[in-house]
């Protein structure tokens, strides 16, 4: 008689999992895994600057072009769905950890650290999600297909949950890790994200106090000479400025765990054409002497990895080189991490919140000038108005944090006037025209999801 009971040979049956401390570690690692996906930090967060006014995404097949143009995409398009799906993948994996790990008999310190990591990661996923879609379903427990037809919760509820998760995470997570756990979420990461969340939600006093909590942890800016290497393997996870990085490992023999920053840049022939390229408007924004220009952008006539740059590889004539390893043999299997949070952002968060709350005080000037001086720029002139300072902070944030997953999200939160102006400012790319519409301030809830779950209606306005 044949044995008809056949079980998978490379996966564990669900009832057998979540039984040991090893399973708990495997489970939390599986949540981090989502961060390294193309639809998160491996491509999207960097590529999103091409939806904003820093870059141009040339290929229609990856859809950024349509989103940046403000048309040709809608609720049925791929990107609103991609990011929604990936975010909930991370959220549900974190939920699984939070639901299953408490029952595992294991070292309590490790257990609570793992739970805190899960809280941090869940907050991070919800943060991006609510920034793009506004109201989204708040899912905190395991659901069956029968229970899955959820409705959306108000953005305020989501933000409260994010802040609760981060507060809890910050209270437990360690300041730093030993070598083998380098890359896990730290207390600094939870607090930095929290300051960003407060800032995004105009809770300026809280943004300031949380930023100060991070500052108190002893982070600092790296010197000018290290600026470029901060985004390269040379200085990855440095204990000075780096706060949280999505970890990539090149040439490991496993696909998808290396970064794709080289292959998308177009800087050398072996990288192929540029997926997204800095545009003239970004170049024009740099003040003379700003070292960030040449750290970020490769220009015609310059060389990279010993090779003259051929501008045919980029439709704008410029190639992005921030985080690009000057080695022609590395393409989509790079070792460069994605720097999600670093001390410069904390200073910018502080400056912005302080300026909004109290105007251009010395705290604001000090924070901004610290950043400017590091990149070879002079102090801002004294006596600026609050609005002038606001504009200066926005510009500093755009240049300092270019291609680090901020610009597009910043434009969305600045609101319609800024988004409109930024879209209309982009005129340098031939055959490319951006048309503003108020609906662009939020992404549509994916039609694909609404087709399955009518409770997700109503759709965001204008979509």
């Amino acid at each position, binding site marked *: 008689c044949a044995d008809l009971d056949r079980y998978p040979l490379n996966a564990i049956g669900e009832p057998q999992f979540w039984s040991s401390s090893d399973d708990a570690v495997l489970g939390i690692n599986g949540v981090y895994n989502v961060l390294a996906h193309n639809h998160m930090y491996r491509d999207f967060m960097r590529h999103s600057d091409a939806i904003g006014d820093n870059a141009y995404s040339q290929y*229609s097949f990856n859809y950024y072009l349509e989103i940046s143009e403000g048309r040709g995409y809608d609720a049925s398009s791929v990107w609103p769905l991609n990011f929604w799906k990936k975010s909930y993948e991370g959220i549900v994996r974190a939920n699984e950890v939070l639901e299953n790990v408490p029952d595992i008999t294991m070292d309590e310190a490790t257990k609570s650290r793992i739970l805190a990591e899960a809280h941090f990661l869940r907050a991070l996923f919800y943060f991006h999600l609510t920034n793009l879609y506004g109201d989204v379903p708040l899912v905190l427990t395991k659901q069956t297909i029968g229970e899955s037809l959820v409705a959306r919760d108000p953005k305020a509820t989501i933000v409260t949950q994010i802040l609760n998760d981060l507060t809890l995470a910050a209270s437990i997570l360690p300041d730093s890790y030993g070598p083998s756990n380098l890359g896990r979420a730290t207390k600094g990461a939870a607090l930095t994200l929290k300051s960003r969340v407060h800032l995004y939600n105009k809770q300026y006093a809280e943004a300031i106090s949380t930023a100060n909590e991070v500052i108190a942890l002893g982070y600092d800016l790296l010197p000018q000479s290290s600026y470029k290497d901060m985004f390269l393997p040379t200085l990855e996870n440095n204990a000075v400025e780096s706060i949280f990085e999505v970890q990539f490992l090149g040439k490991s023999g496993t696909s998808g765990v290396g970064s794709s920053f080289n292959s998308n840049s177009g800087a050398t022939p072996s990288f192929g054409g540029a997926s997204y390229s800095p545009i003239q408007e970004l170049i024009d924004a740099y003040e003379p002497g700003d070292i960030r220009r040449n750290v970020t952008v490769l220009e015609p006539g310059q060389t990279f990895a010993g090779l003259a740059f051929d501008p045919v590889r980029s439709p704008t004539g410029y190639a992005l080189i921030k985080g690009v390893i000057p080695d022609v043999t590395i393409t989509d299997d790079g070792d460069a991490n994605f720097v999600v949070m670093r001390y410069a952002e904390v200073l910018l968060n502080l400056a912005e919140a302080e300026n909004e709350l109290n105007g251009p005080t010395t705290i604001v000037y000090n924070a901004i000038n610290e950043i400017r001086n590091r990149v070879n720029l002079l102090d801002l002139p004294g006596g600026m108005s609050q609005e002038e300072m606001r504009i200066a902070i926005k510009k500093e944030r755009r240049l300092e944090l270019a291609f680090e997953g901020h610009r597009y999200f910043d434009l969305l939160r600045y609101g319609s006037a800024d988004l409109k102006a930024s879209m209309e400012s982009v005129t340098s790319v031939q*055959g490319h025209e951006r048309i503003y519409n108020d609906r662009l301030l939020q992404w549509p809830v994916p039609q694909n999801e609404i087709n399955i779950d009518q409770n997700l209606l109503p759709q965001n306005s204008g979509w």
Partner: protein
Amino acid sequence: TVTNAETGEPLIGANILIKGTSNGTITDLNGIYSLNAEKSSTLVFSFIGFGSKEEIVGNRSIIDVNLSGSELDEVIVVGYGTQKKKNLTGAVGTLNTEDIGSQSVTSAASVLQGRVSGVQLIQGSAQPGNDNPTIQIRGVGTVRSSIDGQNNDSAPLVLVDGVQSTLNDVHPNDIESFSVLKDASSAAIYGARAANGVILVTTKRGKSGKPKVSLNSYIAFQSATATPSVLSPYNFALLKNEAQTNIGNTESYTQSELDLFKNGGNPLYNNGPSFFDEGYRKGAPLQNHYFSVTGGTEYVKYMFSAGFQDQEGIVIETDSKRYNFRSNVDVKVSEKFRTGLNISGSFTNSNEPNYSNFGVTQLVRDMIRHAPLNPYRYENGYISMGNVELSGRTSTAIHPIGLAKYGGNDNTKYYRATPNLYMELEPIKDLIFKANGSVYVEDRKQSFFRSKMTVSDGKNVFTANGLGEYRETDFLNTTSTFELTARYNKTFGKSNFGGLAGYTSQAYRQDFLSAANEGYNNDLLTELDVASLNPSVGGNASEWALQSYFGRVNYDYDGKYLAEFNIRYDGSSRFGENNQYGTFPSFSLGWNMAKEAFMANLTKVNEMKIRASWGQLGNQNIGNYSSIATVNLDQPYVFGNSLVAGAASRALANPNVKWETTETTDIGLDMTIFDYKLSFTADYYNRKSKNVLLSPPVVATLGNLSPPVQNQGEIQNQGYEFSLNYYGNIGSEFRYSLSGNWSHNDNKVLKLDSEFLSANKVLTKEGYPINSFYGHVITGIFQSDIEAQDAESFGLQPGATLVSAGDYIYEDRDGNGIVNADDRAIIGDPNIRNTYGMTLTADYKGFNFRMMFQGVLGRDVENGVFGTDGMRGYSNLTNLYLDRWTPENPDTDVPRVATNYKYNTSLFVGPALSSAILNASYLRMKHIELGYTFPVELTERLGFSNLRVYVAGQNLLTFTKFVDGFDPEDASTFNNVNDSYPQAKTVSMGVNISF
């Protein structure tokens, strides 16, 4: 004289052969024959549609025989046995290999094309070692097909001598016959695997008599049936300039550069042969040799064979060698006990270029799209990559021909072996027990070598194409089967009973192993050990098992009234624990009307049978573990600069999942008239798949998990099939036959809770054919910029302010003034509606001629992106664009060229455009052959009993309205044509020898 036993009339053109030789003659107009034969020899008398008779010559000088049509007992192979054709009540298509002539097919399944009704076969490709056709029987019945609609989920079950395996490496000359089980009645005995139909292949076996040796050899020369024609360097530059000025950019190339492209003069500017001149071989050689010996005694019969095929591909750097062997031995130990051992095996070794790890189809694609502006090699001797003279104005990729030749090699080796032992015990007459055990082993070993290249842009020299990378993969598949059957036949008066009962168990396992290294500096040393940079390993395994009980009862009364009942009780490891077993019944009835007294006067009607069948079949193609919830351990992350394992669930499971049921009703008519000269078969069928296996989407808030497989929805395939054969003769020397078949199928999704859109352009929706093309309707081309911006009349076009004269008009179907996703419609049906075939044969003295046409009427495919994207970057276009819209050429359906303007192209990811949906109907001369059999007197002197030579051609003529330069018979329906390996047009010469 040879006469008809029933009518006493002489039989004209009957065959008389001296047994064991090919020495013979045929009867004349009066049925008279004469022949010189030894006293000891036996004469074999035969006539098409009649039984044959053997007579020993002895001392006779006149031997008169009468042949009887009612003795015709053509036996065909059915599931777990054989059946007399006249008693058949199911829909079974058969093909004897003697009816295919000497068609030089490289994949045995290809001969079914155009010859068996109901079989939808697309050859697709002539790539050596990778040219197995896609086969569907009576349409697509399951949703779990890829967007190309013809993958394994809808492929029929193939059994070679009763063993589940593949036709891929069977030598065509080993095959005696094919039986295609099309309806539920004939296929139900295979239960949960038979929903897509079953193909039974029977190989040749030994017969009593002295050993007979056969040798078949041919050489053939293959060329592409169609070659894309792309813009020349000069036209490319000209159109690129136009594409630039059309969007307000400056021209890319100066007039003096245009002159250089046109007239040559500077070796940095390409004006050498086109990519296709260099990349496609004309007359690529193919040779095939086959040797077999058959014979036996009363106790032992044997057949063994060996085959060899050596094929060079039409595309450069592709080739394949195949070695086959087979040994079928039957031993009669006693009257009550028989046993036998069949062993077959093959080894196939195929190569293709690595082409940046993409393989040969990418090469074909690049030959279309690569800007033709740099030579293959620069004067410095290096392969070109980019062109420094045209920096910024041409492609920067490596020259396609250079990359194909020097970019590395992919090798695929198939090792296949099938041992099969049977034992038969007949304890009392007509009660036979049979035990059968077999293992089908298939090992696919592949290696992928990507070599590091040194290239030049005309001035600088640099390395490209990676680090020197090598990967090896190995898939080992074993299917072991054990079967036990008992069958019994009994006759009571005019009632005949037959019965069959059986048990079978089957277990399948696949083991996968892969390993890779980088850092190879030498193209000659490409083993895993040679380098050690970035090593990686991978491995996996999966299993399924089946256990089944089955039975069949036949009854006929005097050969007039026929009935059959089949049942199979199937258990599969793939189904949920709540649904492990399924029952698949079928029954069929037949009425041989010609045997009735009231038909007795219609002497021209030799046979007339009406049959009807009903039954249920299953489909278990749901993956191996769909019912089991798991946590996968393949979700790694990096900490401390080293990779650590991570775990997560990836899919939802459905413990209640079960087989898909296909219910088929078939009504058929078989007729033979005019002294067995004309036979006719017609079938109508209605094939409904219920509880269709599909994965309705679930919300992402469950964690972006793959949805579970569920049983939902209903699909119908409804159609009819005709086939007709006529045998005739003019005089006694000239005989001919004509046959034809036509199959029509309509596919429709009857019930589906939620529609499925794949790749943003292939829709499966209730009320429409499965996998319909979905997208925008293009109603024409804007003739002026004012018209293009006239949103009131045409709606705001997707390109908004960028739309100009020469662009496509997207139809605003809902008339709301804006063209968006709501304006999409179903714009094409990739399912084949009609297939047909016609064969003509003629014999005159030693000459024999054969010609076969095959066609498809009604099939839509989507044109591909490459060569049709209107110059989005520095990509080349097909010559179709010479007829593009310009103010001077307004009357065309080809849009303007415009750099980076994407709305005139059906892109991979965007919705389909109706302008890109092509009608892939065609009629082609699949096979033509002229042979000559030398007179026996001559061949006997050479020691042969038969010597025949022939010339043949395949795909020599094609009639189609398909897009120029591409073949309509391409397996891919989605983004078709421009990355497919070409089809072969083949001319062959061969010889058949036996002694």
